[in-house]
Protein backbone atom coordinates (compact mmCIF):
# COMPACT_ATOMS: atom_id res chain seq x y z
CA UNK A 1 0.00 0.00 0.00
CA UNK A 2 1.49 3.26 -1.11
CA UNK A 3 0.80 6.35 0.96
CA UNK A 4 0.96 9.81 -0.59
CA UNK A 5 1.32 13.26 0.89
CA UNK A 6 -2.43 13.83 1.01
CA UNK A 7 -2.98 10.61 2.93
CA UNK A 8 -0.34 11.66 5.45
CA UNK A 9 -2.16 14.95 5.87
CA UNK A 10 -5.45 13.11 6.36
CA UNK A 11 -4.20 10.65 8.99
CA UNK A 12 -2.25 13.38 10.75
CA UNK A 13 -5.50 15.31 10.99
CA UNK A 14 -7.34 12.22 12.32
CA UNK A 15 -4.56 11.70 14.88
CA UNK A 16 -4.57 15.42 15.82
CA UNK A 17 -0.84 15.68 15.19
CA UNK A 18 0.44 18.71 13.29
CA UNK A 19 2.97 17.60 10.72
CA UNK A 20 5.13 20.26 9.11
CA UNK A 21 4.65 20.61 5.37
CA UNK A 22 8.32 19.71 4.83
CA UNK A 23 7.89 16.43 6.75
CA UNK A 24 4.92 15.16 4.79
CA UNK A 25 6.82 13.87 1.78
CA UNK A 26 9.50 11.96 3.74
CA UNK A 27 6.83 10.59 6.10
CA UNK A 28 4.79 9.38 3.13
CA UNK A 29 7.83 7.47 1.91
CA UNK A 30 8.54 5.94 5.32
CA UNK A 31 4.94 4.95 5.96
CA UNK A 32 4.75 3.41 2.47
CA UNK A 33 7.84 1.33 3.22
CA UNK A 34 6.53 0.17 6.59
CA UNK A 35 3.08 -0.63 5.20
CA UNK A 36 4.66 -2.45 2.25
CA UNK A 37 6.65 -4.57 4.67
CA UNK A 38 3.57 -5.28 6.79
CA UNK A 39 1.76 -6.34 3.62
CA UNK A 40 3.48 -9.75 3.77
CA UNK A 41 0.81 -10.84 6.25
CA UNK A 42 -1.58 -11.16 3.32
CA UNK A 43 0.38 -14.27 2.25
CA UNK A 44 -1.10 -16.09 5.25
CA UNK A 45 -4.43 -17.81 5.16
CA UNK A 46 -6.21 -16.82 8.37
CA UNK A 47 -9.65 -18.01 7.34
CA UNK A 48 -11.51 -19.26 10.42
CA UNK A 49 -8.84 -18.10 12.88
CA UNK A 50 -10.24 -16.14 15.81
CA UNK A 51 -8.62 -12.72 16.27
CA UNK A 52 -6.79 -12.60 19.59
CA UNK A 53 -8.29 -10.26 22.16
CA UNK A 54 -6.22 -11.22 25.19
CA UNK A 55 -3.16 -13.41 25.67
CA UNK A 56 -4.52 -14.69 28.96
CA UNK A 57 -7.79 -16.53 28.59
CA UNK A 58 -9.78 -14.99 31.37
CA UNK A 59 -13.04 -13.20 31.81
CA UNK A 60 -12.73 -9.49 32.36
CA UNK A 61 -13.48 -8.98 36.03
CA UNK A 62 -16.39 -6.76 36.97
CA UNK A 63 -16.67 -4.84 40.19
CA UNK A 64 -19.75 -3.43 41.86
CA UNK A 65 -20.92 -0.22 40.25
CA UNK A 66 -20.26 2.11 43.12
CA UNK A 67 -18.03 5.07 43.89
CA UNK A 68 -14.74 3.84 45.37
CA UNK A 69 -12.56 6.90 45.12
CA UNK A 70 -12.61 10.62 44.50
CA UNK A 71 -13.39 13.90 46.14
CA UNK A 72 -9.98 15.46 45.52
CA UNK A 73 -10.25 17.70 42.44
CA UNK A 74 -7.05 19.56 43.35
CA UNK A 75 -5.00 16.36 43.15
CA UNK A 76 -6.68 15.37 39.89
CA UNK A 77 -5.98 18.72 38.24
CA UNK A 78 -2.60 19.31 39.91
CA UNK A 79 -0.70 18.86 36.63
CA UNK A 80 -3.02 20.82 34.35
CA UNK A 81 -1.27 23.50 32.26
CA UNK A 82 -4.25 25.72 32.99
CA UNK A 83 -7.14 25.36 35.39
CA UNK A 84 -9.06 26.94 38.23
CA UNK A 85 -11.48 25.94 40.97
CA UNK A 86 -10.93 22.23 40.36
CA UNK A 87 -11.60 22.49 36.61
CA UNK A 88 -9.43 22.18 33.51
CA UNK A 89 -9.35 25.23 31.28
CA UNK A 90 -9.33 24.89 27.47
CA UNK A 91 -9.71 27.34 24.59
CA UNK A 92 -13.28 28.45 24.03
CA UNK A 93 -15.31 25.77 22.21
CA UNK A 94 -18.75 27.45 21.98
CA UNK A 95 -19.52 30.82 20.55
Amino acid at each position, binding site marked *: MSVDKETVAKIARLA*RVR*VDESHKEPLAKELSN*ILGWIEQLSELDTEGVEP*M*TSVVSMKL*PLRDDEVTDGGYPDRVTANA*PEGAHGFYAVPKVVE
Partner: protein
Amino acid sequence: MSDLTNLTLAEARDLLAKGEASSKELTEAHIAAVEAARSLNAFITETPEKALQMAEASDKRRKAGEAGVLEGLPIGMKDLFCTEGVLTTAASHILDGFHPTYESTVSQNMWDAGAVLLGKTNLDEFAMGSSNMTSHYGGVENPWRKSGDNRPLVPGGSSGGSAAAVAARCALGATGTDTGGSIRQPAAFCGIVGMKPTYGRCSRWGIVAFASSLDQAGPMGRTVRDTAIMLEAMAGYDAKDSTSVNAPVPNYEAALTGDIKGMKIGIPKEYRIDGMPAEIDQLWLQGIKWLEEAGAEVVEISLPHTHYALPTYYIIAPAEASSNLARYDGVRYGLREGADGSLDEMYEATRGKGFGMEVQRRILIGTYVLSAGYYDAYYNKARRVRSLIARDFAQAYEKVDAILTPTAPSAAFGMGDKMDDPIAMYLNDVFTVPASLAGLPGISIPAGLSQDGLPLGLQLLGKAFDEETVFKVGGVLEEAAGFDATPAFLAA
Protein backbone atom coordinates in the same frame (compact mmCIF):
# COMPACT_ATOMS: atom_id res chain seq x y z
CA MET B 1 35.11 1.43 42.11
CA SER B 2 33.57 1.13 45.52
CA ASP B 3 33.35 -2.34 47.07
CA LEU B 4 29.71 -1.60 47.85
CA THR B 5 28.70 -0.87 44.27
CA ASN B 6 30.41 -3.93 42.88
CA LEU B 7 28.20 -6.30 44.89
CA THR B 8 25.34 -8.18 43.35
CA LEU B 9 21.92 -7.32 44.76
CA ALA B 10 21.86 -10.67 46.61
CA GLU B 11 25.30 -10.04 48.11
CA ALA B 12 24.29 -6.54 49.22
CA ARG B 13 21.12 -7.96 50.76
CA ASP B 14 23.13 -10.52 52.74
CA LEU B 15 25.62 -7.87 53.86
CA LEU B 16 22.80 -5.69 55.19
CA ALA B 17 21.18 -8.68 56.87
CA LYS B 18 24.42 -9.49 58.67
CA GLY B 19 24.69 -5.86 59.80
CA GLU B 20 28.05 -5.39 58.04
CA ALA B 21 26.79 -2.29 56.23
CA SER B 22 23.79 -0.01 56.56
CA SER B 23 21.42 0.94 53.79
CA LYS B 24 22.62 4.50 54.26
CA GLU B 25 26.24 3.49 53.48
CA LEU B 26 25.14 1.36 50.54
CA THR B 27 22.93 4.15 49.22
CA GLU B 28 25.62 6.83 49.60
CA ALA B 29 28.01 4.69 47.57
CA HIS B 30 25.42 4.31 44.81
CA ILE B 31 24.52 8.00 44.79
CA ALA B 32 28.20 8.72 44.20
CA ALA B 33 28.23 6.13 41.42
CA VAL B 34 25.19 7.70 39.74
CA GLU B 35 26.99 11.07 39.79
CA ALA B 36 30.22 9.55 38.50
CA ALA B 37 28.37 8.00 35.57
CA ARG B 38 26.55 11.13 34.35
CA SER B 39 28.37 10.95 31.01
CA LEU B 40 26.25 7.87 30.21
CA ASN B 41 23.01 9.89 30.50
CA ALA B 42 21.38 6.82 32.08
CA PHE B 43 19.18 8.84 34.43
CA ILE B 44 16.66 11.52 33.50
CA THR B 45 16.07 12.44 37.13
CA GLU B 46 18.37 11.72 40.07
CA THR B 47 16.73 11.58 43.50
CA PRO B 48 19.66 11.53 45.97
CA GLU B 49 17.79 13.27 48.81
CA LYS B 50 14.84 10.96 48.55
CA ALA B 51 17.23 8.00 48.38
CA LEU B 52 18.93 9.00 51.64
CA GLN B 53 15.58 9.50 53.37
CA MET B 54 14.40 6.10 52.17
CA ALA B 55 17.68 4.48 53.25
CA GLU B 56 17.48 5.96 56.74
CA ALA B 57 13.87 4.82 57.08
CA SER B 58 14.96 1.38 55.88
CA ASP B 59 17.72 1.15 58.49
CA LYS B 60 15.11 1.95 61.15
CA ARG B 61 12.76 -0.74 59.86
CA ARG B 62 15.56 -3.27 59.88
CA LYS B 63 16.40 -2.41 63.48
CA ALA B 64 12.74 -2.93 64.33
CA GLY B 65 12.91 -6.37 62.68
CA GLU B 66 10.69 -5.43 59.74
CA ALA B 67 12.96 -6.12 56.73
CA GLY B 68 11.29 -6.76 53.35
CA VAL B 69 12.78 -8.76 50.48
CA LEU B 70 14.44 -5.66 48.96
CA GLU B 71 15.12 -3.97 52.28
CA GLY B 72 17.57 -1.11 51.94
CA LEU B 73 18.64 -1.93 48.36
CA PRO B 74 19.11 1.06 46.01
CA ILE B 75 17.62 0.61 42.56
CA GLY B 76 16.80 2.61 39.42
CA MET B 77 13.21 3.03 38.23
CA LYS B 78 12.54 3.30 34.51
CA ASP B 79 10.98 6.70 33.90
CA LEU B 80 7.84 5.07 32.55
CA PHE B 81 6.63 4.19 36.06
CA CYS B 82 4.64 6.95 37.73
CA THR B 83 6.26 7.89 41.02
CA GLU B 84 4.33 10.10 43.40
CA GLY B 85 5.77 13.60 43.57
CA VAL B 86 8.78 12.67 41.40
CA LEU B 87 9.01 13.99 37.83
CA THR B 88 7.82 11.30 35.40
CA THR B 89 8.55 11.95 31.73
CA ALA B 90 8.33 8.75 29.64
CA ALA B 91 11.32 10.50 27.96
CA SER B 92 8.84 12.71 26.10
CA HIS B 93 8.64 16.46 25.73
CA ILE B 94 4.86 16.17 25.99
CA LEU B 95 5.03 15.18 29.68
CA ASP B 96 7.07 18.25 30.66
CA GLY B 97 6.84 18.91 34.38
CA PHE B 98 4.50 15.98 35.13
CA HIS B 99 4.61 15.08 38.83
CA PRO B 100 2.15 12.21 39.37
CA THR B 101 -0.08 12.44 42.42
CA TYR B 102 -0.07 8.64 42.65
CA GLU B 103 2.39 5.75 42.65
CA SER B 104 2.45 2.87 40.15
CA THR B 105 1.61 -0.48 41.70
CA VAL B 106 4.94 -2.07 40.75
CA SER B 107 7.01 0.77 42.22
CA GLN B 108 4.79 0.80 45.33
CA ASN B 109 5.34 -2.96 45.69
CA MET B 110 9.10 -2.36 45.59
CA TRP B 111 9.00 0.42 48.20
CA ASP B 112 6.81 -1.82 50.36
CA ALA B 113 9.55 -4.46 50.05
CA GLY B 114 12.10 -1.90 51.28
CA ALA B 115 13.79 -0.75 48.05
CA VAL B 116 15.45 2.67 47.76
CA LEU B 117 14.94 4.96 44.72
CA LEU B 118 18.15 6.33 43.17
CA GLY B 119 16.38 8.02 40.29
CA LYS B 120 14.35 7.66 37.11
CA THR B 121 16.21 6.00 34.27
CA ASN B 122 16.27 7.11 30.65
CA LEU B 123 14.41 5.27 27.90
CA ASP B 124 13.18 5.58 24.35
CA GLU B 125 10.31 8.07 24.17
CA PHE B 126 7.15 6.27 25.36
CA ALA B 127 9.26 3.07 25.26
CA MET B 128 9.21 3.19 21.44
CA GLY B 129 12.63 2.17 20.21
CA SER B 130 15.44 -0.36 20.36
CA SER B 131 18.38 2.03 20.71
CA ASN B 132 17.41 4.58 23.39
CA MET B 133 18.10 7.24 20.74
CA THR B 134 14.49 8.48 20.61
CA SER B 135 14.53 9.96 24.14
CA HIS B 136 13.74 13.68 24.36
CA TYR B 137 16.51 13.80 26.98
CA GLY B 138 19.12 12.43 24.59
CA GLY B 139 20.49 8.97 23.97
CA VAL B 140 22.07 6.81 26.64
CA GLU B 141 25.63 5.64 26.14
CA ASN B 142 26.39 1.96 26.55
CA PRO B 143 29.19 1.54 29.14
CA TRP B 144 30.77 -1.06 26.83
CA ARG B 145 33.15 -0.26 23.97
CA LYS B 146 34.40 -2.36 21.09
CA SER B 147 37.93 -3.48 21.71
CA GLY B 148 40.32 -0.85 20.36
CA ASP B 149 37.50 1.52 19.38
CA ASN B 150 36.28 4.29 21.62
CA ARG B 151 33.19 5.32 19.66
CA PRO B 152 30.01 5.35 21.79
CA LEU B 153 27.50 2.55 21.34
CA VAL B 154 23.77 2.37 22.09
CA PRO B 155 22.62 0.45 25.17
CA GLY B 156 19.61 -0.93 23.30
CA GLY B 157 16.07 0.02 24.14
CA SER B 158 13.70 0.90 25.31
CA SER B 159 14.94 0.22 28.87
CA GLY B 160 18.43 1.44 27.90
CA GLY B 161 19.00 3.73 30.88
CA SER B 162 18.17 0.93 33.30
CA ALA B 163 20.47 -1.49 31.48
CA ALA B 164 23.38 0.98 31.31
CA ALA B 165 22.97 1.95 34.98
CA VAL B 166 23.04 -1.65 36.15
CA ALA B 167 25.96 -2.59 33.87
CA ALA B 168 28.03 0.42 34.99
CA ARG B 169 27.42 -0.41 38.69
CA CYS B 170 25.30 2.69 39.40
CA ALA B 171 22.40 0.62 40.73
CA LEU B 172 22.08 -2.89 42.15
CA GLY B 173 19.12 -3.47 39.87
CA ALA B 174 16.53 -1.54 37.91
CA THR B 175 13.04 -1.92 36.57
CA GLY B 176 12.26 -2.17 32.90
CA THR B 177 9.20 -2.63 30.78
CA ASP B 178 9.02 -4.92 27.79
CA THR B 179 6.52 -4.51 24.96
CA GLY B 180 8.42 -6.28 22.18
CA GLY B 181 11.83 -6.86 23.76
CA SER B 182 12.50 -3.65 25.65
CA ILE B 183 13.94 -5.46 28.69
CA ARG B 184 15.68 -8.38 27.00
CA GLN B 185 17.42 -6.60 24.08
CA PRO B 186 19.08 -3.83 26.18
CA ALA B 187 20.04 -6.45 28.79
CA ALA B 188 21.83 -8.36 26.00
CA PHE B 189 23.52 -5.20 24.66
CA CYS B 190 24.80 -4.22 28.13
CA GLY B 191 25.84 -7.67 29.37
CA ILE B 192 23.27 -7.98 32.16
CA VAL B 193 20.23 -10.15 32.92
CA GLY B 194 16.76 -8.92 31.95
CA MET B 195 13.54 -10.75 32.63
CA LYS B 196 10.11 -10.19 31.08
CA PRO B 197 7.49 -12.08 33.09
CA THR B 198 4.24 -13.49 31.75
CA TYR B 199 1.71 -10.86 30.67
CA GLY B 200 -0.53 -10.31 33.69
CA ARG B 201 2.11 -11.21 36.29
CA CYS B 202 2.92 -7.58 37.15
CA SER B 203 0.32 -4.87 37.40
CA ARG B 204 0.40 -2.26 34.63
CA TRP B 205 -1.41 0.29 36.79
CA GLY B 206 0.51 3.57 36.89
CA ILE B 207 2.91 2.60 34.10
CA VAL B 208 2.66 5.00 31.16
CA ALA B 209 0.89 2.85 28.58
CA PHE B 210 2.40 2.08 25.15
CA ALA B 211 0.62 -1.04 23.83
CA SER B 212 -1.65 -2.34 26.56
CA SER B 213 -2.00 -5.93 25.35
CA LEU B 214 1.81 -6.32 25.30
CA ASP B 215 3.35 -4.06 27.98
CA GLN B 216 4.77 -5.88 30.97
CA ALA B 217 7.12 -4.73 33.74
CA GLY B 218 10.14 -6.78 34.73
CA PRO B 219 13.48 -6.71 36.55
CA MET B 220 17.00 -6.03 35.25
CA GLY B 221 20.02 -7.08 37.28
CA ARG B 222 23.55 -8.39 37.06
CA THR B 223 22.62 -12.00 37.89
CA VAL B 224 19.69 -14.36 37.43
CA ARG B 225 19.33 -14.55 41.22
CA ASP B 226 19.07 -10.76 41.47
CA THR B 227 16.26 -10.64 38.91
CA ALA B 228 14.46 -13.50 40.68
CA ILE B 229 14.58 -11.61 43.98
CA MET B 230 13.33 -8.42 42.34
CA LEU B 231 10.49 -10.06 40.43
CA GLU B 232 9.08 -11.57 43.60
CA ALA B 233 8.71 -8.05 45.00
CA MET B 234 7.33 -6.53 41.76
CA ALA B 235 4.75 -9.18 40.88
CA GLY B 236 1.29 -9.82 42.26
CA TYR B 237 -2.40 -9.38 41.67
CA ASP B 238 -3.75 -5.85 41.53
CA ALA B 239 -7.46 -5.09 41.42
CA LYS B 240 -6.63 -1.76 39.74
CA ASP B 241 -5.43 -3.54 36.57
CA SER B 242 -8.16 -5.67 34.99
CA THR B 243 -5.54 -7.72 33.12
CA SER B 244 -3.59 -8.52 36.26
CA VAL B 245 -3.83 -12.23 36.99
CA ASN B 246 -4.86 -13.46 40.41
CA ALA B 247 -2.32 -16.22 40.97
CA PRO B 248 0.08 -16.74 43.87
CA VAL B 249 3.62 -15.39 43.39
CA PRO B 250 6.19 -18.13 44.07
CA ASN B 251 9.54 -17.66 45.75
CA TYR B 252 11.51 -17.37 42.52
CA GLU B 253 14.89 -17.49 44.19
CA ALA B 254 14.02 -20.93 45.54
CA ALA B 255 13.60 -22.14 41.94
CA LEU B 256 17.36 -21.73 41.37
CA THR B 257 18.19 -25.33 42.22
CA GLY B 258 20.63 -25.83 39.35
CA ASP B 259 18.96 -29.13 38.53
CA ILE B 260 17.65 -29.36 34.98
CA LYS B 261 18.27 -33.08 34.43
CA GLY B 262 15.72 -34.58 32.10
CA MET B 263 14.21 -31.24 31.16
CA LYS B 264 13.38 -30.73 27.50
CA ILE B 265 14.69 -27.60 25.82
CA GLY B 266 13.25 -26.61 22.45
CA ILE B 267 15.34 -25.14 19.65
CA PRO B 268 13.07 -23.43 17.10
CA LYS B 269 14.41 -24.02 13.61
CA GLU B 270 12.73 -20.84 12.28
CA TYR B 271 15.01 -18.67 14.44
CA ARG B 272 17.96 -19.44 12.14
CA ILE B 273 17.43 -16.36 10.04
CA ASP B 274 19.23 -15.40 6.85
CA GLY B 275 22.23 -13.19 7.30
CA MET B 276 22.57 -13.84 11.02
CA PRO B 277 26.17 -13.19 12.10
CA ALA B 278 28.16 -16.41 12.59
CA GLU B 279 29.09 -15.41 16.13
CA ILE B 280 25.42 -15.33 17.14
CA ASP B 281 24.88 -18.78 15.70
CA GLN B 282 28.01 -20.10 17.43
CA LEU B 283 26.89 -18.73 20.79
CA TRP B 284 23.51 -20.38 20.32
CA LEU B 285 25.19 -23.74 19.61
CA GLN B 286 27.38 -23.25 22.65
CA GLY B 287 24.26 -22.59 24.76
CA ILE B 288 22.69 -25.81 23.48
CA LYS B 289 25.84 -27.70 24.47
CA TRP B 290 25.89 -26.19 27.97
CA LEU B 291 22.31 -27.25 28.62
CA GLU B 292 22.96 -30.74 27.28
CA GLU B 293 26.00 -31.07 29.52
CA ALA B 294 23.79 -30.12 32.47
CA GLY B 295 21.54 -33.06 31.66
CA ALA B 296 18.79 -31.45 29.61
CA GLU B 297 17.46 -33.01 26.45
CA VAL B 298 17.52 -30.74 23.42
CA VAL B 299 14.61 -31.06 20.99
CA GLU B 300 14.21 -29.35 17.64
CA ILE B 301 10.83 -27.64 17.43
CA SER B 302 8.97 -25.62 14.86
CA LEU B 303 7.31 -22.25 15.38
CA PRO B 304 6.08 -21.89 11.80
CA HIS B 305 4.66 -18.36 12.02
CA THR B 306 7.84 -16.77 13.43
CA HIS B 307 8.49 -14.92 10.18
CA TYR B 308 5.21 -13.01 10.55
CA ALA B 309 5.71 -11.90 14.16
CA LEU B 310 7.46 -8.58 13.46
CA PRO B 311 4.96 -7.24 10.89
CA THR B 312 2.14 -8.37 13.20
CA TYR B 313 3.74 -6.49 16.07
CA TYR B 314 4.16 -3.36 13.98
CA ILE B 315 0.42 -3.29 13.37
CA ILE B 316 -0.80 -4.17 16.86
CA ALA B 317 1.62 -2.06 18.91
CA PRO B 318 1.14 1.19 16.92
CA ALA B 319 -2.64 0.63 16.81
CA GLU B 320 -2.79 0.40 20.59
CA ALA B 321 -0.28 3.23 20.97
CA SER B 322 -2.30 5.59 18.77
CA SER B 323 -5.25 4.99 21.04
CA ASN B 324 -3.32 5.14 24.35
CA LEU B 325 -1.49 8.31 23.37
CA ALA B 326 -4.73 10.13 22.55
CA ARG B 327 -4.73 11.29 26.19
CA TYR B 328 -1.78 13.64 25.57
CA ASP B 329 -3.69 16.65 24.36
CA GLY B 330 -2.39 19.55 26.41
CA VAL B 331 -5.41 19.62 28.71
CA ARG B 332 -4.66 17.50 31.76
CA TYR B 333 -0.88 17.43 32.04
CA GLY B 334 2.38 18.31 30.42
CA LEU B 335 3.04 20.53 27.46
CA ARG B 336 0.44 22.90 26.01
CA GLU B 337 1.00 24.69 22.70
CA GLY B 338 -1.19 26.86 20.53
CA ALA B 339 -3.65 27.75 23.29
CA ASP B 340 -4.64 30.97 21.54
CA GLY B 341 -6.25 29.06 18.68
CA SER B 342 -9.23 26.69 18.68
CA LEU B 343 -9.33 23.53 20.78
CA ASP B 344 -8.44 21.39 17.75
CA GLU B 345 -5.55 23.67 16.88
CA MET B 346 -4.29 23.38 20.43
CA TYR B 347 -4.44 19.57 20.27
CA GLU B 348 -2.57 19.49 16.96
CA ALA B 349 0.07 22.01 17.99
CA THR B 350 0.66 20.32 21.36
CA ARG B 351 0.97 16.84 19.87
CA GLY B 352 3.00 17.98 16.86
CA LYS B 353 5.51 19.68 19.11
CA GLY B 354 5.38 17.28 22.08
CA PHE B 355 5.91 13.95 20.30
CA GLY B 356 9.23 13.02 18.72
CA MET B 357 9.55 11.60 15.20
CA GLU B 358 9.38 7.90 16.09
CA VAL B 359 6.32 8.39 18.26
CA GLN B 360 4.62 10.42 15.52
CA ARG B 361 5.47 7.75 12.97
CA ARG B 362 3.88 5.05 15.12
CA ILE B 363 0.81 7.11 15.96
CA LEU B 364 0.28 7.72 12.25
CA ILE B 365 0.74 4.02 11.38
CA GLY B 366 -1.64 3.11 14.19
CA THR B 367 -4.22 5.66 13.09
CA TYR B 368 -3.94 4.42 9.52
CA VAL B 369 -4.39 0.71 10.31
CA LEU B 370 -7.37 1.46 12.53
CA SER B 371 -9.04 3.87 10.12
CA ALA B 372 -12.21 3.08 8.21
CA GLY B 373 -11.53 0.72 5.33
CA TYR B 374 -8.27 -0.66 6.71
CA TYR B 375 -9.36 -1.99 10.11
CA ASP B 376 -10.07 -5.49 8.83
CA ALA B 377 -7.24 -5.69 6.33
CA TYR B 378 -4.57 -4.69 8.85
CA TYR B 379 -5.69 -4.72 12.45
CA ASN B 380 -7.99 -7.75 12.42
CA LYS B 381 -5.60 -9.62 10.14
CA ALA B 382 -2.78 -8.98 12.63
CA ARG B 383 -4.92 -10.16 15.53
CA ARG B 384 -5.62 -13.39 13.65
CA VAL B 385 -1.92 -13.96 12.93
CA ARG B 386 -1.25 -13.26 16.60
CA SER B 387 -3.55 -16.16 17.47
CA LEU B 388 -1.50 -18.40 15.15
CA ILE B 389 1.77 -17.31 16.75
CA ALA B 390 0.41 -18.03 20.24
CA ARG B 391 -0.82 -21.41 19.00
CA ASP B 392 2.69 -22.25 17.69
CA PHE B 393 4.07 -21.75 21.19
CA ALA B 394 1.24 -23.68 22.87
CA GLN B 395 1.94 -26.65 20.59
CA ALA B 396 5.69 -26.44 21.20
CA TYR B 397 5.19 -26.42 24.96
CA GLU B 398 3.37 -29.75 24.72
CA LYS B 399 6.80 -31.17 23.90
CA VAL B 400 9.30 -28.94 25.75
CA ASP B 401 9.73 -27.15 29.09
CA ALA B 402 11.61 -24.12 27.79
CA ILE B 403 12.93 -22.68 24.52
CA LEU B 404 16.46 -21.40 23.85
CA THR B 405 17.22 -18.72 21.24
CA PRO B 406 19.61 -15.79 20.79
CA THR B 407 18.29 -12.55 22.31
CA ALA B 408 19.24 -10.16 19.51
CA PRO B 409 20.60 -10.59 15.98
CA SER B 410 23.73 -8.52 16.74
CA ALA B 411 25.77 -6.92 19.49
CA ALA B 412 25.29 -3.24 20.40
CA PHE B 413 25.67 -0.84 17.46
CA GLY B 414 26.97 2.70 17.21
CA MET B 415 24.96 5.69 18.40
CA GLY B 416 23.23 7.11 15.33
CA ASP B 417 23.47 3.92 13.25
CA LYS B 418 20.25 2.58 11.69
CA MET B 419 18.40 5.78 12.61
CA ASP B 420 17.41 6.50 9.00
CA ASP B 421 15.85 3.10 8.41
CA PRO B 422 12.92 2.27 10.72
CA ILE B 423 12.58 -1.30 9.45
CA ALA B 424 16.28 -2.10 10.04
CA MET B 425 15.78 -0.79 13.57
CA TYR B 426 12.65 -2.89 14.08
CA LEU B 427 14.62 -6.04 13.12
CA ASN B 428 16.53 -5.81 16.41
CA ASP B 429 13.52 -7.33 18.11
CA VAL B 430 13.11 -10.26 15.74
CA PHE B 431 13.81 -12.87 18.46
CA THR B 432 11.98 -11.17 21.32
CA VAL B 433 8.73 -10.09 19.65
CA PRO B 434 7.11 -13.53 19.08
CA ALA B 435 7.05 -14.36 22.81
CA SER B 436 5.72 -10.87 23.54
CA LEU B 437 2.82 -11.42 21.16
CA ALA B 438 2.08 -14.70 22.96
CA GLY B 439 2.46 -13.07 26.40
CA LEU B 440 5.11 -15.58 27.50
CA PRO B 441 7.94 -15.08 30.02
CA GLY B 442 11.50 -14.70 28.76
CA ILE B 443 14.93 -13.90 30.10
CA SER B 444 18.14 -12.68 28.48
CA ILE B 445 21.40 -13.90 29.96
CA PRO B 446 24.87 -12.62 29.06
CA ALA B 447 26.56 -15.64 27.55
CA GLY B 448 29.63 -14.52 25.66
CA LEU B 449 31.48 -11.79 23.82
CA SER B 450 31.42 -10.86 20.16
CA GLN B 451 34.65 -10.74 18.14
CA ASP B 452 34.68 -7.02 18.98
CA GLY B 453 34.52 -7.75 22.69
CA LEU B 454 30.86 -6.80 23.16
CA PRO B 455 28.37 -8.80 25.24
CA LEU B 456 25.94 -11.18 23.54
CA GLY B 457 22.84 -12.62 25.15
CA LEU B 458 20.96 -15.89 25.00
CA GLN B 459 17.22 -15.90 25.53
CA LEU B 460 15.17 -18.52 27.38
CA LEU B 461 11.42 -18.57 26.97
CA GLY B 462 8.96 -20.39 29.20
CA LYS B 463 5.34 -21.39 29.50
CA ALA B 464 2.81 -18.85 30.73
CA PHE B 465 3.20 -18.26 34.48
CA ASP B 466 6.12 -20.68 34.64
CA GLU B 467 8.79 -18.08 35.43
CA GLU B 468 10.29 -20.60 37.84
CA THR B 469 11.49 -22.85 35.00
CA VAL B 470 12.85 -19.83 33.14
CA PHE B 471 14.86 -18.81 36.20
CA LYS B 472 15.97 -22.39 36.88
CA VAL B 473 17.29 -23.03 33.38
CA GLY B 474 18.60 -19.46 33.26
CA GLY B 475 20.63 -20.09 36.41
CA VAL B 476 22.23 -23.16 34.82
CA LEU B 477 23.02 -21.27 31.63
CA GLU B 478 24.53 -18.39 33.61
CA GLU B 479 26.70 -20.76 35.63
CA ALA B 480 27.94 -22.55 32.50
CA ALA B 481 28.64 -19.31 30.63
CA GLY B 482 30.58 -17.87 33.57
CA PHE B 483 30.31 -14.42 32.04
CA ASP B 484 32.65 -12.18 34.02
CA ALA B 485 33.71 -9.55 31.50
CA THR B 486 33.20 -5.96 32.61
CA PRO B 487 32.34 -2.87 30.58
CA ALA B 488 34.97 -0.28 29.66
CA PHE B 489 33.20 2.27 31.84
CA LEU B 490 32.50 1.51 35.50
CA ALA B 491 31.19 4.12 37.92
CA ALA B 492 33.86 4.77 40.49
